[in-house]
C-alpha cells in the first residue's frame, strides 16, 4: 500500500479518485498498526475506539478539505 502511494505521488498521478484511495489505504494501514502492533485488537472497545475514531475523523476532515 505504501509502495502504491509512493508511485502515485512520484509520477504525479494523484487525482480525486486516487486521493480517496490513498485516504482509505491510510486508514487500513493505521487500523492494522492500532490492532496488531499496538495490541488493541483484543482490548475492550472503549480503548480501541479512541485511536480508530482519531484515524477516521482526521482522514475524513482531510478528505473534506481536499474535496471542498
Amino acid at each position, binding site marked *: 500500500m*505504501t*509502495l502504491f*502511494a*509512493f508511485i*502515485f*505521488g*512520484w509520477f*504525479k498521478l*494523484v487525482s480525486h479518485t486516487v*486521493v480517496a484511495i*490513498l*485516504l482509505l489505504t*491510510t486508514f487500513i*494501514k*493505521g487500523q492494522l*498498526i*492500532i490492532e*496488531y*502492533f*499496538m*495490541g*488493541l485488537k*483484543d*482490548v*475492550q*472497545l472503549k*480503548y*480501541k475506539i*479512541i*485511536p480508530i475514531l*482519531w*484515524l477516521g*475523523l*482526521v*482522514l475524513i*476532515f*482531510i478528505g*473534506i*478539505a*481536499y474535496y*471542498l
Partner: protein
Amino acid sequence: MNTKKLFPPGDFGIWIIIYIELLTFAGLFIGYAFSRRANLDVFNESQLLLDQKAGFINTIVLITSSLFVVYAVKAIKENNSKLSANWILSAMGVGFIFIVIKLLEFSDKFEQGINLSTNTFFMFYLMLTVFHFLHVVLGLIILFNIYQKTKIGGYSDKNYIGMETGASYWHLVGLLWIVLFQVVDIIR
C-alpha cells in the same frame, strides 16, 4: 464468553499520553489540510520540493522498526530475554536510519533557505516533521532504556509491562508518520 482484555498493553499512563498526542497531531493535520485549501498553489508548488523517496523509505523504516518491537515483546512473553534484546536493538538500528534520513532532509531544506517563515506550507511541514522527529528521538531513548534493562534480565514473562509501555509509544510514532507521509508528501 468475553475474552477482551480490561486494559491496553503497558502502563495505562502511556495511553493517556498517546491519546493526548493523537489529539495534538489531529489539530496539526486538519490545520494543514484546511490551510492547503486556502493556499492551493503555494502548497502544490512547495510540495514539489519534498523528497518523496526519502518519505517512502522512512515509512518502510518506521513500520519495520515497529514490527521488530512487536517481535521483542513476543520474545519476552516467551521468557527469551536475549532474543527480545536483539529485536529491540534491531528496532533501534532501523529507527536510527529514520533519524539520519530526516536530518539530511532538514539540512537540505535549511541550505535552500527554507524555514518556518518561508510560506504556510513549509511552516506546517517543518512544524509537523520536526515535532514528529522529536517524538522519534524520544522513542529511541525509551527503546535504548528498554534494551539495557532487557539485557540484564530486567524483564521476563512475568514482568514485561515496562517493555509494552515503551513499545506502545514507539508504535504511536509509526502511526503518526503513516498519516503524515500521505498528507504532506503524497496528496496534492
